[in-house]
């Protein structure tokens, strides 16, 4: 794709600005800011990746992955605002999920420890874990608020905070995992996912592209499950005192 084609395709943003203006949605400014941010961020990342791929350094690769995790943790933590230490819990959970999945993929020989492979794969799993762990903490917070009476009933019967939270933990973890599970169900039928589309556009045979997409699907599912489970288990403790009292 040449630069002119790219500039012309950017004119499509005008459609969304027009709809926003016509329907008085009041999001024209946000669309413009979002578009500019996307251009600046992607250009910046493009150059960074170009440098890292060229340098082919383990240190730079890991630094890039860690930076992705921190930014993802910071973004997802907004959904859990009010929960003490939520940024650390989400960041740890995303890192944990990503580390297990990446290690497994490398050990299974699905990818090699090269920046060209590790960074895009990390981006996909970290992005997915960011959304799911954000959903998990947000739901956890809502459930504790709306089910205070239920939790106190458990505590009054002699349950500890873990036992009293069993049900809300299940709900919160499930909420975080459902978008990934749902998208898995319609994969290839309703949507041709990002990686597969990219490979097909890049000229790879669709059958081969499907193999990669399958790997991406499995790795996203595992990372999501690990991140949601970990963040829920770390966060629920913040709603209780050490004496199993609901705060």
């Amino acid at each position, binding site marked *: 794709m040449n630069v002119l084609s790219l500039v012309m395709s950017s004119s499509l943003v005008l459609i969304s600005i027009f709809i926003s203006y016509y329907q008085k949605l009041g999001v024209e400014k946000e669309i413009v800011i979002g578009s500019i941010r996307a251009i600046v961020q992607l250009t910046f990342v493009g150059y960074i990746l170009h440098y890292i791929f060229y340098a082919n350094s383990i240190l730079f690769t890991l630094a890039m992955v860690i930076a992705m995790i921190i930014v993802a943790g910071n973004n997802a933590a907004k959904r859990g605002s009010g929960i003490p230490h939520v940024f650390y819990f989400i960041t740890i959970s995303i890192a944990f999920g990503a580390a297990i999945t990446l290690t497994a993929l490398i050990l299974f020989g699905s990818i090699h420890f090269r920046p060209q492979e590790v960074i895009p794969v990390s981006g996909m799993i970290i992005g997915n874990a960011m959304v799911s762990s954000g959903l998990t903490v947000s739901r956890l917070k809502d459930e504790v608020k709306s089910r205070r*009476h239920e939790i106190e009933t458990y505590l009054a019967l002699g349950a500890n905070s873990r036992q009293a939270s069993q049900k809300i933990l299940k709900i919160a973890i499930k909420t975080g995992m459902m978008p990934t599970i749902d998208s898995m169900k319609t994969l290839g039928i309703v949507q041709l996912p990002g990686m597969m589309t990219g490979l097909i556009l890049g000229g790879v045979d669709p059958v081969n592209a499907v193999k990669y997409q399958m790997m991406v699907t499995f790795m996203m599912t595992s990372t999501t499950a690990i991140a949601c489970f970990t963040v829920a288990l770390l966060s629920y403790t913040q709603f209780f005192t050490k004496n199993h009292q609901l705060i």
Partner: protein
Amino acid sequence: MKKIKFIDVGFKDHDDVILKDISMEISFGYIYTIIGPSGAGKSTFIKLINRLIDPTEGKILIDEKNIKDYDIIKLRRRIGMVFQQPYLFEGTVEDNIKYGPMIRGQRDTNVDYYLSMVGLDKSYRTRKVDDLSGGEAQRISIARSLANEPTVLLLDEPTSALDPASTQVIEDLVIELKNKLNLTIIWITHNMEQAKRVGDFTIFINNGRLIEYGNTKAFFSNPKNDLTRLFINGKLTKEGIE
């Protein structure tokens, strides 16, 4: 367990004073009813006893030992609590009654025995909780607390959502349980007649302060405090004196 003693107990929620300077004794084996306007601090008072919350001032002793020195989980099993809205867990009546014993590792709970304690026959065992009436659900929540074999039962307005017939059943049941199991009952009620009917002793809390407590008969026939007199005569509400 023989006595609960409150010594200068207070509770603050951030800057809001919910309870202040509560000093009193509760002797075991009796029914204590707690009365007072809405928002007086009655529910907070009983939540302090099973440590769902801790006092921010003063201390509570059970048999001269600070309740903070008891194992909190064991304490909550000894001091059961029944709420205004009986939250029953999904599943059957049996699942609910077995819950307390199950989480402490006991598998052989005699469900029929606890059902009989609340005047229900064993056919209820397999009933789904969604199929129960309000009165039945409240009886199951009492049976569920009894399965922990408590010595004290805290009741937070257990009949306020029930019809008169179900209310009568619960009142009779609680009096019977107290006599049969030598339970100590601490019962919050908004119903003055109910307090007279069931209480051996009555505690009056207003605006976070313990105004008066004593033998129920003397409390209602000859209140010592003017605020108590006003409240009994329906002239003291949450908003103040009418």
